C-alpha cells in the first residue's frame, strides 16, 4: 500500500518536474546582432538574404543586413508579417528587388512573395507552381518554372516562363520553354532561359531558349551543354551560362553565348556552381561533386569578361576559405565591391554568411538561416 502511494507521489512529482506544459506557439521573432561597424554615406541601405530552408520544413526565411548600423537581423519576415499563415514557406529559391518591391520566389510553396522593399511588409502573393527564378524588364517580371502541361509520361513536361505585371501584380502570359528551366537574362527585347532537364536524368536538357518578349514566343533554341543553370550577361552582350555536368563523367563548365548572333561562341572549361557579375569581372566558385569519388572539389575564381581570361584563382586570400564547409551563395556589393559568400554547411543545419573585403580578407562572419543563398541589395 505504501509502495503504491509512494509511487503515485513520485510519479506526480515527476510529472510536475519534467513535464513542462506545452506553451502556445508565438510568431517567430527576428534576432539581431552587431556584426560590422556602422557605415554612413552609403547609397545602399542594406541587403536581404534569402535562406532556402530544407524541403518539407517550411523553413525559408529572410535575413536583413543594415549597413548604416552594422546590424544583422535573422528571420525578419514572420515578425513583420505575423498574420501570414505558415510564414514565408518552403524552399526559397530567388530574391530580387525591382522598384519599391522585393520579390521572393518560394519554390515548394508554389508562389512568389511580394513585399515592400523598405518596410518589409507583405503586399501580395502570386501563385506559380514550382517557380524557380525571377528577372525584370520594362515593368514586367519573368518567372521560370519547372511546371509544365501534364503529359502522359512523368517528367516529360516542358517548363514555362510566366510574366507578371509589376503594377497590378497579376499574371499576364506564359510561354513553354525547355525542360526544367532555371536562370534567365534579358537583353533588350530578348529573354534567355537556361534549361536544365534536371528531372530527366540522364537525358538532361542542353538548350537555352530565346524568347521574343513582345510576342512572348520562342524565336530560337540554342544548343549549349547538359544541365544548364546559371546565367549572367556582361556589358558587351556576352551571355555566360553554366552547365552543371552530370556529376559523373561530364564536368561542370561555362559557356559564352553571343547575344547578337544567338550562338555559342566559347566554351571556357571552367567549372562553375555560382556566378556573380560585377563590372567587367565575373566572380565564380565551383563545388563540383562527383559521385564517382564521393567528394566535392571546391574552387573559386574571377574571370575578366573582356578577354575571358582568369584573373585570379582565389577570391578569398586570407586562407579562411578552408573554414567554409559548402560555399553556396555568392554576391558582390556593387558599391563597395565587398564579397559575400554563404556556407550552407550540410544543407540541414544553420548556415553562415561570410563578408570579405574586395581584396579577399575576412571582415565578418555570422550565422544566418538554413541554407543561406540569395542576396538582394536595397538602395536608400
Amino acid at each position, binding site marked *: *500500500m505504501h*509502495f*503504491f502511494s509512494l*509511487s503515485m507521489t*513520485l*510519479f506526480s*512529482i*515527476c510529472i510536475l518536474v519534467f*513535464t*513542462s506544459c*506545452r506553451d502556445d506557439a*508565438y*510568431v517567430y*521573432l527576428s534576432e539581431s546582432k552587431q556584426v560590422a561597424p556602422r557605415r554612413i554615406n552609403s547609397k545602399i541601405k542594406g541587403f536581404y538574404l534569402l535562406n532556402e530552408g*530544407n*524541403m*518539407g520544413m*517550411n523553413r525559408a*526565411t529572410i535575413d536583413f543586413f543594415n549597413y548604416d548600423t552594422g546590424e544583422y537581423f535573422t*528571420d525578419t519576415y514572420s515578425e513583420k508579417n*505575423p*498574420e*501570414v*499563415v*505558415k510564414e*514565408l*514557406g*518552403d524552399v526559397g529559391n530567388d530574391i530580387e528587388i525591382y522598384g519599391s518591391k522585393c520579390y521572393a520566389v*518560394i519554390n515548394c*510553396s*508554389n*508562389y512568389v512573395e511580394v513585399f515592400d522593399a523598405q518596410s518589409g511588409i507583405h503586399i501580395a502573393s502570386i*501563385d506559380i*507552381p*514550382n517557380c524557380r527564378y525571377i528577372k525584370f524588364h520594362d515593368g514586367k517580371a519573368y518567372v521560370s518554372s519547372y*511546371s509544365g*502541361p*501534364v503529359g502522359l509520361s*512523368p*517528367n516529360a*513536361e516542358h517548363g514555362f516562363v*510566366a510574366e507578371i505585371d509589376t503594377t497590378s501584380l497579376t499574371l499576364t502570359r506564359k510561354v513553354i520553354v525547355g525542360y*526544367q528551366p532555371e536562370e534567365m537574362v534579358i537583353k533588350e527585347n530578348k529573354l534567355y532561359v537556361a534549361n536544365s532537364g534536371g*528531372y*530527366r*536524368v*540522364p*537525358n538532361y536538357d542542353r538548350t537555352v531558349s530565346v524568347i521574343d518578349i513582345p510576342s512572348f514566343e520562342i524565336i530560337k533554341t540554342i544548343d549549349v551543354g547538359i544541365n544548364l543553370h546559371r546565367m549572367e550577361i556582361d556589358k558587351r552582350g556576352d551571355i555566360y551560362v553554366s552547365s552543371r555536368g552530370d556529376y559523373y563523367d561530364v564536368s561542370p563548365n561555362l559557356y559564352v553565348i553571343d547575344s547578337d548572333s544567338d550562338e555559342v561562341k566559347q566554351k571556357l572549361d571552367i567549372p562553375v556552381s555560382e556566378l556573380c557579375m560585377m563590372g567587367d569581372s565575373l566572380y565564380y566558385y565551383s563545388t563540383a*561533386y562527383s*559521385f564517382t569519388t*564521393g567528394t566535392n572539389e571546391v574552387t573559386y575564381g574571377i574571370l575578366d569578361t573582356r578577354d575571358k581570361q582568369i584573373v585570379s584563382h582565389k577570391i578569398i586570400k586570407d586562407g579562411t576559405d578552408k*573554414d567554409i*564547409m559548402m560555399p553556396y551563395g555568392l554576391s558582390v556589393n556593387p558599391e563597395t565591391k565587398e564579397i559575400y559568400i554563404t556556407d550552407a*554547411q*550540410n544543407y*540541414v*543545419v*544553420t548556415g*553562415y554568411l561570410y563578408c570579405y573585403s574586395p581584396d579577399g580578407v575576412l571582415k565578418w562572419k555570422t550565422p544566418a538561416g*538554413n541554407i543561406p543563398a540569395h542576396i538582394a541589395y536595397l538602395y536608400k
Partner: protein
Amino acid sequence: MTRKRLFPISVHKILYRSLVCTFLYVPINVCAQSALDSIQHIQEVVITAKPFKEVIPIQKLSGIQLEKLSAMNVADALRYFSGVQIKDFGGMGGLKTVNVRNMGSHHVGVFYDGIEVGNAQNGVVDLGKFSLDNMEEVALYNGQKSDIFQSAKDFSSASAVYMRTKRPHFEKDKETNIQLRYRTGSIQLSNPSLQIEHRFNSNLKATVNAEHIHSNGQYKFRYKRLMMNGEVAYDTTAIRKNSDIDAYRIETALFGASNNTSWHAKLYYYGSDRGLPGAIVKNVFGSGERQNDKNFFAQGSLIREVNEKYKFKINAKFAYDYTHYLSRDSVEFLNDYVTQKMQFDNSYYQQDVYLSTVHAYEIKPWWNASVSVDFEYNKLNATMRGVNTPFTFPQRYTTLAAFASSADLGRIKLQANVLGTFVTETVKNNVASPDKLEWAPAVFMNYEPIESGPFNFRVFYKRIFRMPTFNDLYYTQIGYSQLKPEFTDQYNLGFTYNKVFHHAFLDKIHFQSDMYYARITNKIIASPTGSSFRWMMTNMGLVETKGVDTSAEILAHVNHLKGRLNLSYSYSKAQDFTKINGLKMSSYGDQIPYTPWHSLSVIGGLQFLQWGLNYSFIYVGERYDGAVNNIERNHVEPWYTHDLSLDYSFTTNRIKWRISGEVNNLLNQYYDVVLNYPMPGRNYRLALTMNL
C-alpha cells in the same frame, strides 16, 4: 534540386542534469502477464530445458492489457515503452517508425513470430502496418533477447521488437473458436476482423486471421500562432487530406508438435492502398501522392530436442514485397493543367529468402553453448516511368554466424556471443558496394545479491552494426555505394526489483531501471524530404547518447476491484559530434533532432467484475526539429495525449461479448510528432467483439 548530399554530421556530449533525476525516474516496465488477464492464454509449446532468467532489459505488453490499450497498431503500443521514440507522420496511412535509445530506427530489429521482418530497400519497417488485432504480445529488448538458442539474426541488432501473434487455445473439448470483431470510430474508421482457430487433434492446430481497415483519413488540424502581446497572429484550421487508407490482411498458421519436435508454419498477406499525406507547408495544404503495397511472406520454424543435451532449430522464410508509388499532382495555371512538382510513377519489387539453423548443446548442467548460421538473399527490382536512369538492380547475399554461450553460476549468470557477418552484393548498373566482413561481440552478466530475492542487477556491452540499405547505397542522386556500415557500441547497467505478494492489497511490484551509454559511429541518418517516400540522407559521423530508462508495474486489488498501473520514464541526451573534413558543424554538440530529453507514459487499468476502465497518457518533452541546431527557431513544444477507454464483457447463450468505447487525445491537443505532419485531435472508437 540536386542538392541533398549527405554529409555527416555530428555529435554529442552529455551531462546529466542532476542525480536527483535518477531517483525520480519513474520506473516502469510493462511486463509479463498478470493475474488480471481475463482471457487466458497458453504459452506456445516451448521446449527448453530450464527457464532462463532474463539477463537483458525487457519490456512487454501482452494479452488483455494490449487489447485494452487505445492502440490500433504495434507502433502505437510501443510508444508506452521507455527509451522508445516513435516517428509518426500522422494521417491514417502515415509512416510510423520506432527508434530505441536514439540509435536510429535502422538499429531496431523487428521480428514477427520469431523471424525478422526486413526491408533491404530502406531498412525501416513501418510498424503502423502491423495490427494489434491478432497480437498476443509485443516485447522490446535492449541489446537482444537473452537466449542463446536463437538464430544469428536475433543477435544482429542493437535492440529488438518481438511481435507474437495469438496462439490457439481451446477449452476442454472445444474444437473450434471463432472471434468476430468490429471497430468503428472517428475519421470514418471501419475495421472488421475475424479469427478462426481449429484443433485437428492435440498435436495439430490451425488459425486464420483476417482484417480490413478503412478510413478516409480526413481529420481536422490546426496551426495557430500568437503575437507577443497575446493577440492571435493567425489561427487556421483545415482538414488533413490524402491520408486515407484501405488495407487488407490475411494470415494463416499451423502449429504442430510431436514427441520432441514442435513446429509452426505461417502464410501472411497484406495489401494496402493509401494516401501519403505530405508536409503541411505554406500554400500547400494537401498533396496527392499515393502508395500501394502488397506484402507476402511464408515462414516456418521447427525445433527438435534430439536428446537431453542437444537441440536444434530451423527457420525459413520467403518474402515478396511490392510497392507502387505515384506522385502526379497537378494544378490549373493560366488555363492549363500543369504539374506541381517532380513526378513519380515507380514500382519496387523486393524478394527475400532466409534460412537459419541453430544448434544448442548443454556442455554441463550450468553451461550451454550454441552455434547459429543464417543465410539471407535480398533482391530489389524497380520500374520507374519517366525516369531514364538505369536502375541499379542490387542483389545482396548475407551470411551470418553466431557463437554463443551461457553459464549459470548460481547468483551470477553470464552470456556472451560473437556475430560474424559477411555481405556481398552484385548490381546490374552502377558500382556495387565492396564486400564486407564484420565481427561484433556482446557480453551480458546478471547478478542476484540474494538468491530468489527481489533484486537483480545486470550489465551488458554490445557492439553491432547495420549495413547501409539499398537506398543508402544506390538511390539515384542520393545514394553512395562506398558508404560504410554504421556501428553502435552500447553499454548498459541496470537492475530489476520484482516482488509478488500473497494475501495483501498489493499483488505485485515490478520496478526496473537501466542506465546506458551508446556511441554511434559512421551514423547514417535518413530525414524526410517533401515526400515521405524519399529520404534525404545525411551521414552523421558520430553520435553519443546517454540515458536512463525506467519502468514500473504495480498490481493491486480490493475485493473485486483490481487495479494495475504501468509507468515509464526515459531521460536521454543524444549529441551530435560530427566533423566534416575536420570542421565542426554549426550544430556541433547539440541534441539530435526529434529527441526529447524527457518522455514518460502511464497506463492505468481498473477491472470491476465485468467492467474495465483503462487510462493511458503519453508525454514527449521539448525537443528540436529536423533543422538540427538547438536554437529557438527549431524548438518544438512538448506534446501529450490522454486516452480513456471503458469496456464491458458479458455472456449470452455461450457467446462471449465484449463492448468497448475509447476517447483518444481527450484534451483535443493539436500537435505534430514530426514537424508539419499534423496528428489527429480528439477522436473516438467503438468496438464490439464476439467469441463463439
